[in-house]
């Protein structure tokens, strides 16, 4: 901003450059030495500020006089948020008029043409005749006394202030004057008004040039005034562009800080949203957990009471009590597992075992369970042709396999489940065991598939949606990976879940016999 200030001061004397915020309070300002500061001052009562705000266009003010009695005009340019169109503030400069307009003509030398500049109200912004007229209004008593209420000059000036060009010849007691009107239009509106005054004596003194000279004088007057005005307008345009650059710079900064604000707002909103979702999930979890715990408790409570009423059905009721106790146990195990995972207390009791054998045993158990069950399911198992040694927590790995099998059975009801184990190698030539569990059930709802390994994600009417979350944590704690997909190939249905576990590098198959 200081750079701009000195830059524009090379063009003409400017004593203030300021930035006002949207409430018209001056927030930044640079003033030349001896000029009054307006920092933190409310400019809203200034007409040009209001006009700039209302029209959102740059505005040239009428003249105004400060307490230092210096007459000034101001040029104000609105700062507008280019995307929203919102008014943000104003950049403006204050220009002492006398030094400014003196650039465009001799306003002191009474022997030649000189300039008088008015604002829209008729206040004299620059005057060559007498310095005491400066900042006075043409129609005021002081100026009128000075001009002896000359009617021709009065008419001429009235016309000028309405934007009408023309000239007049008059004498208010100090010799005959020929005066030309030139209104200055800025953005299509007459904003400043110039009179070029020439004492006719200077013309008549060269009377020998007679009519031709007269005409030439008039011609040069007009040319002179036009060029003066052109220069004036060019300066004003230059001004505008300097201020516009300041506005652009400021707008860019604003936009950038807005963007940053927006970004951090978005981040906060996102974090809030996550918190809300988390909170909602917690509440939902407590609600579902309470439902899931109370249901088997209700069954146990009722059947133990019914045992006394129907002693002959003891076997049936104790089976029901047992069934519900197991359900309750499984539930509490899951909740405890999650607590362990979340507190980082999941410990693995690793041992060396043959994965083929463990999976085969689990499959055997499930096959006998399925026979008794209402589900009509065929369970197939294809082991790897050799034993597959892994060093892992046998119980935990069994838990994962049971979880995946339970899900497959729950969502298949009627159909087939294929379990297979393969040995594969990754890009680093490290061997791993890949376990695949494929079912022909309804598949995973595409909506929940991407988050299926998160907590509380379930489409089932039974359970807490913790099984896959626990399984994922167990497999990852072993350095493995678990994933799932829907089986949509060749018109198939159902879901496929995989997990892989790293194999012992060296002694595979050394201790174990070929799997039978």
């Amino acid at each position, binding site marked *: 901003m200081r750079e701009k200030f000195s830059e524009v001061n090379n063009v003409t004397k400017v004593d203030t450059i300021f930035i006002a915020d949207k409430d018209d309070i001056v927030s930044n300002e640079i003033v030349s030495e001896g000029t009054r500061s307006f920092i933190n001052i409310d400019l809203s009562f200034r007409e040009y500020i209001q006009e700039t705000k209302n029209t959102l266009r740059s505005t040239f003010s009428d003249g105004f006089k400060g307490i230092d009695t210096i007459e000034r005009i101001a040029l104000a340019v609105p700062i507008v948020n280019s995307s929203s169109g919102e008014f943000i503030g104003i950049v403006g400069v204050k220009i002492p008029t006398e030094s400014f307009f003196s650039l465009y003509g001799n306003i002191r030398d009474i022997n030649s043409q000189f300039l008088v500049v008015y604002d829209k109200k008729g206040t004299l912004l620059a005057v060559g005749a007498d310095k005491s007229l400066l900042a006075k209004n043409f129609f005021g008593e002081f100026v009128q006394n000075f001009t002896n209420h000359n009617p021709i000059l009065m008419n001429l000036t009235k016309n000028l202030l309405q934007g009408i060009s023309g000239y007049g010849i008059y004498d208010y007691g100090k010799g005959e004057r020929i005066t030309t009107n030139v209104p200055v239009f800025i953005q299509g509106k007459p904003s400043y008004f110039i009179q070029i005054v020439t004492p006719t004596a200077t013309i008549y003194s060269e009377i020998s040039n007679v009519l031709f000279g007269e005409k030439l004088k008039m011609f040069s007057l007009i040319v002179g005034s036009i060029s003066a005005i052109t220069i004036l307008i060019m300066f004003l345009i230059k001004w505008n562009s300097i201020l516009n650059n300041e506005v652009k710079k400021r707008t860019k900064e604003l936009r950038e800080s807005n963007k940053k604000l927006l970004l951090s707002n978005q981040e906060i909103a996102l974090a809030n949203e996550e918190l809300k979702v988390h909170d909602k999930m917690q509440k939902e979890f407590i609600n579902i957990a309470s439902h899931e715990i109370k249901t088997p408790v*209700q069954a146990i409570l009722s059947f133990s009471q019914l045992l006394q009423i129907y002693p002959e059905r003891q076997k049936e009721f104790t089976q029901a009590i047992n069934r519900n106790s197991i359900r309750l146990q499984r539930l509490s195990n899951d909740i405890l597992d999650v607590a362990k995972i979340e507190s980082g207390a999941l410990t693995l009791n690793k041992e060396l075992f043959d994965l083929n054998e463990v999976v085969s045993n689990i499959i055997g158990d499930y096959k006998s369970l399925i026979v008794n069950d209402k589900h009509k399911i065929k369970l197939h198992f294809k082991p790897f042709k050799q034993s597959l040694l892994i060093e892992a927590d046998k119980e935990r790995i069994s838990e994962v396999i049971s979880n995946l099998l339970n899900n497959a059975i729950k969502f298949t009801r009627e159909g087939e489940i294929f379990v297979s184990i393969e040995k594969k190698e990754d890009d680093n030539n490290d061997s791993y065991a890949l376990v695949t569990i494929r079912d022909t059930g309804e598949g995973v709802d595409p909506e929940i598939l991407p988050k299926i390994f998160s907590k509380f994600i379930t489409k089932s009417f039974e359970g807490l949606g913790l099984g896959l979350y626990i399984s994922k944590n167990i497999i990852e704690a072993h350095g493995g990976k678990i994933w799932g997909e829907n089986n949509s190939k060749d018109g198939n249905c159902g879901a496929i879940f995989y997990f892989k576990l790293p194999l012992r590098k060296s002694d595979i198959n050394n201790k174990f016999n070929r799997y039978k």
Partner: protein
Amino acid sequence: MDEINKILLVDDEYDIALAFSLGLQSNGFSVDMFTSPIEALSNLKVNYYNLALLDIKMPEMDGFELAQKIKDKDEKIKICFITAFDLSYQRVKEYSGCIIKKPISIDDLIKKIKMEIE
């Protein structure tokens, strides 16, 4: 004359349905028990039951929807929800003010239902 109270019982948990059903029967109620809301609707005896005892969280349709469908066919039937949820449902009031929270002893269940029927 003591009329036998007839109860329609719907709970998707077979063990719960069976236990409540037996508990009510041992206290002189006549109970038709279903573990599927759809089956319950297709076998509904209109203007027959004194009270429908309905679970809230069920597949196919929840207890509220089932209650509405039963009420559509049988205006006079009283509805009691039975649930293991902790929430006090605003929606319960749309159908009845009666909510029984699991777990509940058979004695308390009988007391509540008798109170509701009277």
